[in-house]
C-alpha cells in the first residue's frame, strides 16, 4: 500500500520535479560499454519459482522475490526449511518465472483470515489443510496440480476478474523489486512468468521473459493458461505487448520430455496442420528451448537414438508418463518430446514448407520451486521446499505430487544453467543473445563452450579460435548457406569448470535429411582426453574415459580427462544438397550424483537402481546448414 501511494505521488510529481524511482544511481543498460563481440559467457537461471507460485508456496517455500535475487547474487540466505544456503559462485542473471495461473493465490489463501473463507467449503478445506501440517500443504498442492491437469478445479476458483486486483499489485511490486536489484554490468534481473497449459496432463509449459523494465511490463498482466491454453494465444499476447509498448519478449518451452509428444507435434494444438503463419510466429516467439532441468533432460532418448550411448541421461522416471502421470507415454510419442528429434522435424518442415518452426537454441535452467537457483550436485536444494537439503528421505521417497505412480526423489536432476555469450551483462545484451541463439545448456557445471561454423576454417585457426570464428564464420545458433559445395568446417573449444570435473570428450551431433526425404542423425567423437590410449572403434564408439568416483566419499579425481579440449572438424559425410544441423555435446568425466552426497551425509544405503554416477554435460545451440537454393 505504502509503495502504491509512493508511486502515485511520484508519478504526479514527475512532470514538475523529475521525482523518479530510478534516480540514476542504479544506472541503465545504456551506461554499460558493450564489448565488440561476445567475449564473456554469462551464467543464469531463466526458470525460478518463489513464494508467489501457487505450487511453490504450497510445497512450503517462504522465500520471496528479494530473497531469490539475493541468493542468485551470491549472498547466504536461510532456506524455507531452515538450512543455510549459498552458491559456490554468484549467477550473472536471473528470471523469476512464477506461474501466471493464480499467481500469489496460495499465499493469499494461506494468509487469509479463516473467517473470510467460512462460506466457501472448498477453499476452507484447503486453508485448513495448509495450516494443519506440511503434509497437508503438500496434499493441497497435489490436488491443485491434479485439478488443473484434469480440469476438475471448481469454476471461478481462480477467476481472473476477481483476482485481477491482487495480481496487478503483486506484479507491479514484483517488477519494482526486480528493477531495484537489476545492476547493469553486474547482475541482471529479468521480468518474467511461466505460462502453464497442460491439456490432459501433457506439459506445454513456457517461461516468458521480458527485455524491459517495469515501466513497460507493469502495463500488462502475466498471461494465464486457465483461460487460454493454446500457445498460439500466448504468442498473440506477446505480439500485442510488443506492439503496444515497443518492448521485447520471448518464450522458452521446457519439459518437452513430459509433453507426451505434444511440445514439438507435427500439428497445431487443435489438430489442424501447421501452416506458414504458425511456423513464422513460433520461430519468432520461441528462439530457445530449455533442454535440461530438475524434472529431467529432454535432449534425446535411447528409443530415438539407439546408437547414442549417452542418450539416456536424465530420462529415468520421466519417460513413462506425462507431467501429471495421468497418461502413459508410448515410445511412439517421444518424437515430439525430445529436442534432437524436434530439430530433425524442423529440417523436414524447412524442406516441405520453406521455413522451420523448431529452429531453437538450447539452454538449461533449474525450475527450482525453492527460490534457490541451485544446480550443483553437492549443494542441491531439491525441486521444492518439501525436499530441501536437510530432508534425509528425499532421495528415496516416492514423489507422488500430482501423480499416482512412482517417480522417486533420485529421478530429479540437480540441473541446469543457461550460458549466454553476450556483449555485456545487461537486459538488452543477454536478451538479444538469446534471440540470436548464442547460448548453450549445461547440467550444472560452468564449462566454457565455443562453437563456430564456416566453410573456410583451417586446422591452424584453432590458435585464435574466437576471433577467427567470428571473422570467418558464425557462432552457435547461426546459419550457414551455400558454400559452393564445400563441406562445412567447425572450430570447437571446451574449457572445464575450474570448480568441477575434467572433460571427457567433445561430440558433434549432426541431423540431416537424406535423399529419401527422411531425417537422420549421427554422432561424431571429435576430440577427447588421452588420445594416445583412447581410440574410436569400428562401431564409431570411443573408449570410455574411465571412472574415478569414490562412492563412499562422494569424490572423484581429476587424474583422467582433460582441462581443455580444442579442435577443428570438417563433416566427412557432407552432401551439399541436404539440409542439416550440427550441435556439440561436451561430456565431463564421471562424477557422483546428488543422492550420493545425501547417502554420505545421512548414512543411507542407496538401492541398486539409483543412478549414482553420471557424466555432466553441455549442449550447444545448433548451427544450421541450408543449401543455397532453399531458404531457412
Amino acid at each position, binding site marked *: 500500500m*505504502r*509503495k502504491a501511494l*509512493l508511486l502515485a505521488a511520484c508519478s504526479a510529481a514527475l512532470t514538475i520535479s523529475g521525482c523518479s524511482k530510478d*534516480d540514476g*544511481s*542504479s*544506472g541503465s543498460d545504456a551506461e554499460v560499454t558493450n564489448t565488440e563481440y561476445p567475449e564473456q559467457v554469462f551464467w543464469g537461471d531463466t526458470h525460478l519459482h518463489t513464494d508467489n507460485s501457487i505450487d511453490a508456496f504450497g510445497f512450503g517455500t517462504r522465500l520471496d522475490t*528479494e530473497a531469490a535475487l*539475493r541468493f542468485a547474487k551470491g549472498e547466504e540466505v536461510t532456506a524455507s526449511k531452515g538450512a543455510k544456503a549459498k552458491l*559456490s*559462485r*554468484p549467477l550473472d542473471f536471473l528470471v523469476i518465472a512464477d506461474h501466471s495461473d493464480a499467481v500469489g493465490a496460495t499465499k493469499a489463501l*494461506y*494468509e487469509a*483470515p*479463516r473467517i*473470510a473463507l*467460512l*462460506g*466457501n467449503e472448498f477453499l476452507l478445506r484447503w486453508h*485448513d489443510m495448509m*495450516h*494443519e501440517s506440511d503434509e497437508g500443504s503438500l496434499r493441497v498442492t497435489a490436488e491443485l496440480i491434479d485439478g488443473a491437469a484434469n480440469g476438475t478445479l471448481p469454476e471461478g476458483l481462480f477467476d481472473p476478474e*476477481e483476482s485481477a486486483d491482487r495480481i496487478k499489485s503483486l506484479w507491479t511490486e514484483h517488477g519494482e523489486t526486480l528493477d*531495484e*536489484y537489476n*545492476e547493469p554490468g553486474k547482475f541482471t534481473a529479468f521480468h518474467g512468468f511461466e505460462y502453464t497449459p497442460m491439456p490432459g496432463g501433457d506439459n506445454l509449459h513456457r517461461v516468458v521473459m521480458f527485455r524491459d523494465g517495469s515501466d513497460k511490463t507493469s502495463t500488462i498482466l502475466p498471461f494465464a493458461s486457465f483461460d487460454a491454453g493454446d500457445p498460439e494465444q500466448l504468442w498473440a499476447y506477446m505480439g500485442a505487448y510488443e506492439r503496444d509498448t515497443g518492448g521485447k519478449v520471448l518464450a522458452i518451452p521446457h519439459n518437452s520430455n513430459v509433453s507426451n509428444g505434444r511440445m514439438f507435434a507435427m500439428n497445431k494444438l487443435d489438430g489442424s496442420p501447421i501452416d506458414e503463419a504458425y511456423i513464422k510466429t513460433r520461430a519468432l516467439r520461441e528462439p530457445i528451448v530449455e533442454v535440461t532441468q530438475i524434472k529431467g533432460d529432454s535432449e534425446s532418448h535411447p528409443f530415438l537414438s539407439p546408437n547414442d550411448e549417452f542418450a539416456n541421461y536424465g530420462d529415468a522416471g520421466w519417460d513413462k508418463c506425462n507431467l501429471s502421470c495421468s497418461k502413459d507415454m508410448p515410445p511412439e510419442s517421444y518424437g515430439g518430446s525430445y529436442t534432437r528429434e524436434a530439430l530433425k522435424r524442423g529440417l523436414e518442415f524447412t524442406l516441405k514448407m520453406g521455413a522451420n518452426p523448431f529452429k531453437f537454441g538450447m539452454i538449461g535452467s533449474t525450475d527450482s520451486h525453492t527460490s534457490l537457483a541451485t544446480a550443483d550436485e553437492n549443494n542441491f536444494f531439491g525441486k521444492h521446499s518439501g525436499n530441501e537439503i536437510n530432508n534425509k528421505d528425499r532421495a528415496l521417497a516416492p514423489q507422488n505430487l500430482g501423480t499416482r505412480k512412482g517417480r522417486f526423489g533420485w529421478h530429479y536432476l540437480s540441473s541446469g544453467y543457461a550460458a549466454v555469450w553476450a556483449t555485456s551483462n545487461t537486459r538488452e545484451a543477454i536478451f538479444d543473445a538469446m534471440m540470436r541463439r548464442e547460448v548453450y545448456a549445461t547440467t550444472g557445471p560452468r564449462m*566454457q563452450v565455443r562453437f563456430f561454423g564456416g566453410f573456410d576454417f583451417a586446422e591452424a585457426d584453432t590458435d585464435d*579460435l574466437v576471433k577467427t570464428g567470428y571473422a570467418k564464420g558464425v557462432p552457435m545458433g547461426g546459419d550457414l548457406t551455400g558454400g559452393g559445395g564445400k563441406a562445412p568446417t567447425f572450430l570447437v*573449444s571446451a*574449457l*572445464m*569448470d*575450474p*570448480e*568441477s570435473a*575434467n572433460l571427457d570428450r567433445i561430440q558433434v551431433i549432426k541431423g540431416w535429411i537424406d535423399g529419401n526425404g527422411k531425417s537422420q542423425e549421427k554422432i561424431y567423437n571429435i576430440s577427447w582426453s588421452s588420445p594416445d590410449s583412447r581410440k574410436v572403434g569400428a562401431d564409431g564408439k570411443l573408449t570410455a574415459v574411465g571412472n574415478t568416483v569414490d562412492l563412499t566419499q562422494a569424490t572423484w579425481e*581429476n*587424474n583422467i580427462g582433460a*582441462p*581443455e579440449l*580444442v579442435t577443428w572438424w570438417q563433416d566427412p559425410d557432407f552432401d551439399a544438397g541436404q539440409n542439416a544441423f550440427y550441435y556439440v555435446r561436451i561430456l565431463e568425466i564421471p562424477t557422483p550424483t546428488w543422492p550420493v552426497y545425501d547417502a554420505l551425509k545421512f548414512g543411507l544405503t542407496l538401492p541398486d537402481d539409483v543412478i549414482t554416477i553420471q557424466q555432466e554435460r553441455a549442449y550447444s545451440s545448433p548451427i544450421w546448414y541450408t543449401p543455397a537454393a532453399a531458404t531457412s
Partner: protein
Amino acid sequence: MKLLKEPLVHFLGGALLVFAFFWATGTGRDPADYEITIRETDVARLKAGWVQNFRRAPTPGELDSLIDQEIKEEIYYREALRLGLDRNDPLIRRRLFTKMRFLDNQEGVDDNPSDALLQKWLDDNPEKYTQSPFYDLEQIYLGQSAQQSIAATLDGLNQGTVKPDAVRKPISLPTELKQADASEIARQFGEKFVAGLNTIAVGEWQGPVQSGFGQHLVKITAKTAGKSPALDDVRQAVANDWRAAQTTRLEEAAFDKYRAQYDIKVTGRE
C-alpha cells in the same frame, strides 16, 4: 460527600457490585463474557462474503441464518475456550503462531530511506561494499601436475634466462590480467586461485598457485587496494541491503519483545 466524587470510590463500588452479583447468583460468571454483539460492520462482512461466493446479495432469510451461524460459532468458540480446548491442539497453536507472525510483519519498512540512513549503513558495513584489491598479473599454466622442477623454472624466469612461453602449457585462459578484481579472477580461474594470490609476493614470478585447472606460476606486477565506494556509486545495492536488513530487524524485534517476557528453560537438547 466529597468522597462520592472520587473515581477510586466509584471503581471500588463498581467492583463490589460485581462481586455481590456473583455472590448472589452463585455462578461466578462475568456478564461481559456472555455478551454477544453483532455490529453493522459484522453484517456488512457477512454480506460481502456471501456476494463473493454467490455473486448476489443474501435474501433477508439467508442473512438471518448467516447471523445465527455467526452467533452459534461465537458461542461454541467461547465455550471451547472455557473448556481449554485450545490448549495442546497443534492445529490451533500453529494457526495462532502464523497469525501473530503475519500481524507483526504488517509493520512495513520505510521505502524511502534518507541518504543519511544509507550512508550510515554503508559506514557500518564496509566489508560488503569495499572493493577487492585490483591485480595486474601474468600467469603461466603448467598443466594439471607440473612435470618440471618449479624452483629451477622460477629462478630462470626471474633471471630472464627462461621465457614464459617456453614453459607455458596451452590453455585458453588469459596470460595477462589488468586491473582485475577478485570476482573477475574467480570467474575465470576459480576461488582457489584467488586465495592463492594472497600468499605470494608482488614483483617476481612465484608459485605454484593452484587453480581448478592445475598449477600456475604467477607474477603480480601491481596490486592496488580496493577503495571504499561513495554512496552514489552503490546506492541501489545499499538501499536493497538496508531494506532487507530492516525487514529482518523488525521481525526479530517483534519476536524479542515477546520472548523477553518469558523465562525459558530447555532440557535434553543435544
